[in-house]
Protein backbone atom coordinates (compact mmCIF):
# COMPACT_ATOMS: atom_id res chain seq x y z
CA UNK A 1 0.00 0.00 0.00
CA UNK A 2 1.17 3.50 -0.85
CA UNK A 3 1.91 5.61 2.21
CA UNK A 4 1.85 9.39 2.31
CA UNK A 5 3.60 11.82 4.64
CA UNK A 6 0.56 12.33 6.85
CA UNK A 7 0.78 11.86 10.61
CA UNK A 8 -2.26 10.24 12.21
CA UNK A 9 -2.87 11.14 15.84
CA UNK A 10 -5.36 8.81 17.51
CA UNK A 11 -6.94 9.89 20.81
CA UNK A 12 -8.67 7.08 22.70
CA UNK A 13 -8.73 8.49 26.24
CA UNK A 14 -11.61 10.65 27.41
CA UNK A 15 -11.34 14.28 28.54
CA UNK A 16 -10.89 15.46 32.18
CA UNK A 17 -9.83 12.23 33.90
CA UNK A 18 -6.49 12.16 32.08
CA UNK A 19 -4.40 14.66 30.12
CA UNK A 20 -3.61 12.33 27.19
CA UNK A 21 -6.22 13.95 24.95
CA UNK A 22 -4.84 17.43 25.47
CA UNK A 23 -1.35 16.15 24.74
CA UNK A 24 -2.62 14.62 21.50
CA UNK A 25 -4.15 17.92 20.40
CA UNK A 26 -0.92 19.74 21.36
CA UNK A 27 1.09 17.32 19.21
CA UNK A 28 -1.30 17.94 16.31
CA UNK A 29 -0.72 21.69 16.61
CA UNK A 30 3.05 21.26 16.77
CA UNK A 31 2.97 19.05 13.68
CA UNK A 32 0.82 21.60 11.87
CA UNK A 33 3.23 24.40 12.85
CA UNK A 34 5.92 22.43 11.02
CA UNK A 35 3.62 22.09 8.02
CA UNK A 36 2.98 18.38 8.46
CA UNK A 37 -0.35 16.99 7.31
CA UNK A 38 -2.33 15.68 10.26
CA UNK A 39 -5.30 13.36 10.70
CA UNK A 40 -6.75 13.87 14.16
CA UNK A 41 -8.79 10.77 14.99
CA UNK A 42 -10.98 10.22 18.06
CA UNK A 43 -11.90 6.67 19.09
CA UNK A 44 -13.34 4.89 22.16
CA UNK A 45 -13.81 7.32 25.08
CA UNK A 46 -11.78 9.86 23.05
CA UNK A 47 -14.96 10.81 21.16
CA UNK A 48 -16.14 12.67 24.29
CA UNK A 49 -13.58 15.41 23.51
CA UNK A 50 -15.90 16.33 20.64
CA UNK A 51 -19.20 16.54 22.55
CA UNK A 52 -20.68 20.04 22.16
CA UNK A 53 -22.39 20.24 25.54
CA UNK A 54 -19.27 19.86 27.70
CA UNK A 55 -19.14 22.22 30.67
CA UNK A 56 -15.74 22.24 32.33
CA UNK A 57 -16.94 24.80 34.91
CA UNK A 58 -18.69 21.90 36.65
CA UNK A 59 -15.31 20.72 37.92
CA UNK A 60 -13.37 24.03 37.66
CA UNK A 61 -11.41 22.81 34.63
CA UNK A 62 -11.33 24.00 31.02
CA UNK A 63 -12.46 22.32 27.82
CA UNK A 64 -10.49 22.55 24.62
CA UNK A 65 -13.39 22.44 22.22
CA UNK A 66 -12.59 26.04 21.20
CA UNK A 67 -9.08 24.83 20.39
CA UNK A 68 -10.55 21.95 18.37
CA UNK A 69 -12.85 24.27 16.43
CA UNK A 70 -9.86 26.47 15.59
CA UNK A 71 -7.79 23.61 14.17
CA UNK A 72 -8.77 24.49 10.60
CA UNK A 73 -6.86 27.76 11.03
CA UNK A 74 -3.79 25.66 11.72
CA UNK A 75 -4.54 23.75 8.53
CA UNK A 76 -5.61 20.63 10.38
CA UNK A 77 -8.64 20.08 8.24
CA UNK A 78 -9.67 16.60 9.19
CA UNK A 79 -11.19 15.71 12.54
CA UNK A 80 -12.44 12.15 12.48
CA UNK A 81 -14.58 10.24 14.96
CA UNK A 82 -15.10 6.48 15.00
CA UNK A 83 -18.77 5.79 14.30
CA UNK A 84 -18.69 2.49 16.23
CA UNK A 85 -17.44 4.30 19.34
CA UNK A 86 -20.36 6.74 18.99
CA UNK A 87 -22.83 3.85 18.81
CA UNK A 88 -21.30 2.26 21.92
CA UNK A 89 -22.26 5.36 23.91
CA UNK A 90 -25.55 6.13 22.08
CA UNK A 91 -24.02 9.35 20.72
CA UNK A 92 -25.13 10.88 17.42
CA UNK A 93 -23.26 12.96 14.85
CA UNK A 94 -25.32 15.98 15.96
CA UNK A 95 -23.97 15.68 19.52
CA UNK A 96 -20.46 16.43 18.23
CA UNK A 97 -18.73 19.57 16.95
CA UNK A 98 -19.89 20.46 13.43
CA UNK A 99 -16.43 20.03 11.91
CA UNK A 100 -16.19 16.32 12.77
CA UNK A 101 -16.38 13.67 10.06
CA UNK A 102 -17.54 10.16 10.98
CA UNK A 103 -15.49 7.18 9.84
CA UNK A 104 -15.99 3.46 10.31
CA UNK A 105 -13.36 1.45 12.16
CA UNK A 106 -12.23 0.04 8.80
CA UNK A 107 -11.82 3.52 7.36
CA UNK A 108 -9.77 4.58 10.40
CA UNK A 109 -7.66 1.47 9.97
CA UNK A 110 -7.01 2.56 6.37
CA UNK A 111 -6.16 6.13 7.43
CA UNK A 112 -3.52 4.77 9.81
CA UNK A 113 -2.20 2.30 7.24
CA UNK A 114 -1.72 5.10 4.73
CA UNK A 115 0.02 7.42 7.19
CA UNK A 116 3.77 7.64 7.50
CA UNK A 117 3.43 7.80 11.27
CA UNK A 118 0.65 7.04 13.72
CA UNK A 119 0.75 8.12 17.35
CA UNK A 120 -1.88 7.09 19.89
CA UNK A 121 -2.92 8.79 23.13
Amino acid at each position, binding site marked *: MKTNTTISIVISQ*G*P*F*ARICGKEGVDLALVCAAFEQKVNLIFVD*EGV*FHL*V*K*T*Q*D*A*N*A*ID*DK*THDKQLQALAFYEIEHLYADSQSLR*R*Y*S*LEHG*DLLDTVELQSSDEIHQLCRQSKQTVTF
Partner: protein
Amino acid sequence: MSRLHLISDSFETQTLAQKSERYLEKNDSVLLIADGVLMGLQQHIVQSLLDTSDNCYLLDQDCRCRGISLLLGKQPNGGRLKLISYETMVDLCARSEQVIAW
Protein backbone atom coordinates in the same frame (compact mmCIF):
# COMPACT_ATOMS: atom_id res chain seq x y z
CA MET B 1 -25.83 1.27 54.13
CA SER B 2 -23.01 -1.21 54.11
CA ARG B 3 -20.84 -1.24 51.07
CA LEU B 4 -20.19 1.40 48.41
CA HIS B 5 -18.34 0.87 45.13
CA LEU B 6 -16.66 3.87 43.49
CA ILE B 7 -16.11 3.08 39.81
CA SER B 8 -13.93 5.67 38.08
CA ASP B 9 -13.22 4.10 34.69
CA SER B 10 -15.36 3.25 31.68
CA PHE B 11 -14.90 -0.50 31.24
CA GLU B 12 -15.73 -2.76 28.31
CA THR B 13 -18.70 -5.03 29.03
CA GLN B 14 -16.55 -8.11 29.60
CA THR B 15 -14.03 -6.32 31.83
CA LEU B 16 -16.86 -4.90 33.93
CA ALA B 17 -18.39 -8.37 34.26
CA GLN B 18 -15.07 -9.80 35.45
CA LYS B 19 -14.51 -6.99 37.94
CA SER B 20 -18.10 -7.16 39.18
CA GLU B 21 -17.66 -10.85 39.86
CA ARG B 22 -14.54 -10.05 41.88
CA TYR B 23 -15.83 -7.12 43.94
CA LEU B 24 -19.58 -6.61 43.68
CA GLU B 25 -22.28 -8.31 45.71
CA LYS B 26 -26.06 -8.13 45.52
CA ASN B 27 -27.50 -4.96 47.09
CA ASP B 28 -24.17 -3.12 47.28
CA SER B 29 -24.38 0.55 46.26
CA VAL B 30 -22.56 1.74 43.15
CA LEU B 31 -21.38 5.28 42.43
CA LEU B 32 -19.97 6.05 38.99
CA ILE B 33 -17.44 8.91 38.97
CA ALA B 34 -14.88 10.41 36.51
CA ASP B 35 -14.85 8.33 33.27
CA GLY B 36 -17.09 5.79 35.02
CA VAL B 37 -20.08 8.06 34.28
CA LEU B 38 -19.67 7.26 30.57
CA MET B 39 -20.98 3.77 31.27
CA GLY B 40 -24.32 5.43 32.08
CA LEU B 41 -24.80 5.80 28.32
CA GLN B 42 -24.43 2.07 27.70
CA GLN B 43 -27.82 0.46 28.09
CA HIS B 44 -26.70 -3.12 28.71
CA ILE B 45 -24.13 -2.02 31.30
CA VAL B 46 -26.67 0.12 33.16
CA GLN B 47 -29.07 -2.82 33.14
CA SER B 48 -26.47 -5.20 34.58
CA LEU B 49 -25.61 -2.69 37.34
CA LEU B 50 -29.29 -2.19 38.15
CA ASP B 51 -29.79 -5.97 38.26
CA THR B 52 -27.21 -6.15 41.05
CA SER B 53 -27.83 -2.94 42.92
CA ASP B 54 -30.93 -0.92 43.77
CA ASN B 55 -28.75 2.10 44.53
CA CYS B 56 -26.81 3.24 41.47
CA TYR B 57 -25.54 6.80 41.52
CA LEU B 58 -23.76 9.10 39.07
CA LEU B 59 -21.69 12.10 40.15
CA ASP B 60 -23.50 15.09 38.66
CA GLN B 61 -20.42 17.29 38.20
CA ASP B 62 -18.61 14.60 36.20
CA CYS B 63 -21.67 14.17 33.96
CA ARG B 64 -22.06 17.91 33.40
CA CYS B 65 -18.43 18.56 32.50
CA ARG B 66 -18.57 15.72 29.95
CA GLY B 67 -21.76 17.17 28.48
CA ILE B 68 -23.78 13.97 28.92
CA SER B 69 -26.50 15.02 31.41
CA LEU B 70 -29.14 15.50 28.68
CA LEU B 71 -28.08 12.33 26.88
CA LEU B 72 -28.48 10.32 30.09
CA GLY B 73 -32.05 11.58 30.38
CA LYS B 74 -32.82 10.09 26.96
CA GLN B 75 -31.69 6.59 28.00
CA PRO B 76 -34.53 4.15 28.79
CA ASN B 77 -33.05 3.42 32.23
CA GLY B 78 -31.49 6.85 32.70
CA GLY B 79 -34.06 7.86 35.30
CA ARG B 80 -33.11 4.95 37.57
CA LEU B 81 -29.56 6.25 37.97
CA LYS B 82 -29.55 8.95 40.62
CA LEU B 83 -27.48 12.06 39.96
CA ILE B 84 -25.77 13.23 43.14
CA SER B 85 -23.56 16.16 44.18
CA TYR B 86 -20.07 16.10 45.71
CA GLU B 87 -21.68 16.72 49.11
CA THR B 88 -23.91 13.66 48.80
CA MET B 89 -20.93 11.61 47.63
CA VAL B 90 -19.04 12.55 50.80
CA ASP B 91 -22.10 11.66 52.84
CA LEU B 92 -22.44 8.27 51.11
CA CYS B 93 -18.75 7.48 51.67
CA ALA B 94 -18.94 8.51 55.33
CA ARG B 95 -22.06 6.43 55.96
CA SER B 96 -20.73 3.29 54.23
CA GLU B 97 -19.05 0.65 56.32
CA GLN B 98 -16.83 -0.22 53.41
CA VAL B 99 -15.77 1.74 50.31
CA ILE B 100 -14.30 -0.17 47.38
CA ALA B 101 -12.75 1.94 44.60
CA TRP B 102 -12.03 0.33 41.25
